[in-house]
């Protein structure tokens, strides 16, 4: 193709009377009816200077949900990235204003669906703060077990999908196999695999069945072997290191200013973990370490999350050892359902059951915000009560939403394939981002 032909095909006819660019006309083949095209004066038709606009998503295997990234590319280097979200916006916060507190727990499963039981715990903590309730010791330890199991589940999904994005398929299968074991445990406890609705305001939906702790200990004993296996395959692998080191670097000050939290923030070297800095559920009494990275790149995020998996197992071991006997729910009939045996035999318990189910527990006027360390970052539920059974405002502070906002900063100057790796390293869940 001669240079002359290239010029004809690429140049536009310039601007129209209103100063808007004119529609690019199709060049016909017969030559006779082709519009005479002149480049605007002073602007050279230049192949090298043109940027390409590429659209990734919203349906895409590697975006981890319905995320749309519009990338402006100079060759294969990203010049600008514009993320579009909202493709999974389902009106959680609106619907929270029309549901009682115990009913909202079912919604908390679905927004960050990888950390369902952790979200249940986070909401229950916030609601109990709003009600002014202290839960029992057994309930606290069970909730710690739930949170850490949830953290392991979420990090395993992240690990599996992150590996697939980089190109390694086998760790995905290993990770999901371990997840099936946790699913079986959770299903024995709560009844559901993924959407657990495990907590209630004032306690848990159910106590663990007998023999459950043996299953947990079995898991604690065998899980580190899988971690060692994945570690052997990935951590010092030249391809892995080559594809992840130096990508998406966020300095500590940038990370704090962009509001990153969780492993994203800790990989940049900032030592902020809600379990250590603003503890809940007696986390200060557990002996665990918080991994903090140095470079803030994708590789450090991988290392931080991997180490968190090991630390979670350590916490689970301690929780399993210290689980006290006793009731799992508090003994407050205005808030929590009475035991079934009482509700079907005593009149007063039946009335309490009726009131809690039909009207719902009513907190005093006030508001609360309790933040927990979800696998994605600082997760919090801000609830405002006006004294009725349904909150005035239920706000979900979504860690992935704030983490994802930094992606334009992180991918600038990197290659197209790095965009996928960086996006995967943020560990986003679109359900939480769009709510």
């Amino acid at each position, binding site marked *: 193709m001669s240079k002359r032909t290239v010029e004809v095909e690429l140049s536009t006819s310039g601007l129209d009377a209103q100063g808007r660019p004119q529609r690019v006309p199709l060049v016909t083949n017969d030559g006779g009816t082709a519009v005479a095209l002149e480049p605007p004066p002073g602007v050279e038709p230049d192949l090298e200077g043109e940027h390409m606009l590429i659209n990734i998503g*919203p*349906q*895409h*295997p590697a975006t981890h*949900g*319905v995320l749309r990234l519009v990338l402006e590319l100079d060759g294969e280097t990203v010049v600008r990235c514009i993320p579009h979200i*909202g*493709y*999974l*916006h*389902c*009106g959680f916060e*609106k*619907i929270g204003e*029309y*549901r*009682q507190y115990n*009913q909202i727990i*079912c*919604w908390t*499963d*679905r927004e960050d*669906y*990888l950390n*369902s039981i952790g979200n249940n715990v986070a909401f229950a903590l916030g609601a109990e703060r709003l009600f002014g309730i202290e839960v029992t010791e057994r309930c606290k330890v069970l909730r710690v077990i739930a949170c850490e199991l949830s953290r392991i589940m979420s990090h395993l*999904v992240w690990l599996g999908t992150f590996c697939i994005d980089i190109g390694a398929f086998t760790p*995905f*299968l290993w990770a*999901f*196999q371990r*997840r*099936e074991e946790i*699913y079986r445990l959770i299903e024995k406890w709560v009844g559901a*695999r*993924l*959407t657990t609705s495990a907590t209630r305001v004032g306690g848990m939906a159910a106590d663990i069945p007998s023999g459950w702790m043996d299953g947990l200990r079995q898991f604690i004993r065998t899980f580190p072997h899988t971690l060692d296996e994945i570690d052997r395959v990935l951590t010092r692998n030249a391809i892995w290191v080559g594809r992840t080191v130096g990508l998406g670097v966020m300095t500590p000050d940038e990370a704090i200013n962009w509001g990153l939290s969780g492993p994203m923030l800790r990989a940049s070297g900032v030592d902020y973990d809600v379990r250590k800095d603003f503890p809940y559920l007696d986390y200060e009494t557990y002996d665990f370490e918080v991994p903090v990275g140095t470079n803030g790149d994708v590789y450090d995020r991988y290392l931080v999350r991997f180490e968190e998996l090991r630390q979670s197992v350590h916490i689970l071991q301690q929780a399993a050892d210290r689980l006290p006997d006793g009731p799992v729910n508090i003994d407050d009939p205005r808030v929590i359902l009475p035991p079934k045996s009482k509700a079907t035999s005593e009149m007063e318990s039946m009335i309490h059951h009726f009131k809690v189910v*039909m*009207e*719902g527990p009513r907190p005093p006027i006030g508001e609360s915000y309790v933040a927990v360390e979800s696998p994605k970052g600082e997760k919090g539920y801000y609830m405002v009560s006006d004294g009725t059974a*349904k909150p005035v405002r239920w706000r979900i502070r979504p860690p992935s939403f704030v983490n994802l906002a930094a992606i334009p900063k992180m991918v600038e100057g990197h290659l197209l394939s790095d965009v996928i790796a960086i996006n995967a390293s943020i560990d986003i869940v*679109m*359900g939480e981002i*769009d709510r």
Partner: protein
Amino acid sequence: MGLTASGEHRTVSYAPESQEGWVATRLDFLVNWGRANSLWPMPFGTACCAIEFMATAASDFDLARFGMERMSYSPRQADVLICAGRVPFKLAPIIRRIWQQMPQPKWCISMGACASSGGMFDNYAVVQGIDTIIPVDVYVPGCPPRPEGLIYGIRMLQEKVKNERASDKGIRDEMEPDPSSQLYIPPPVIDELGEPFGNSVNQTRSGL
């Protein structure tokens, strides 16, 4: 292939005097056997059901034994669109476009309560059932459905595929929505079904 827009019923019927001979029936069997046992899914996974779909595809439940391990994220190479998860209104034109990009033969599985009917999200943001915007063959209930449930739905689809006949001329035509509304269910029916009714109003205890 889901609901018809105009209300006609499309049935597959065998007339005793049909001209199908031995070759045609063997060919039907072969073609349907090939299609049913190698349905390449296009996982349109949005939310929690997508995670259960991934668990179904992973080693414990293993979709590979049904020939479905090759996930086709390009709709051009896919056979069955598995809509796993809730579809908000913002995503509606996307799933419509993906469905249009899939070449025949194609089927659709609506996985989960949210894709089938809007699920627990009866609000301003969620499509109350994707069968309003694309034709659905199999609905799999559950929130999320267990992997066994999804596999049962896939088996139902395989039975449906195996019962197709080449002599049924219209079966592989592209099913178009109603031209005036661009929807697969008449708008008055959608509006009527969209109103909460009966006991569902009391279930939420808010009257809404």
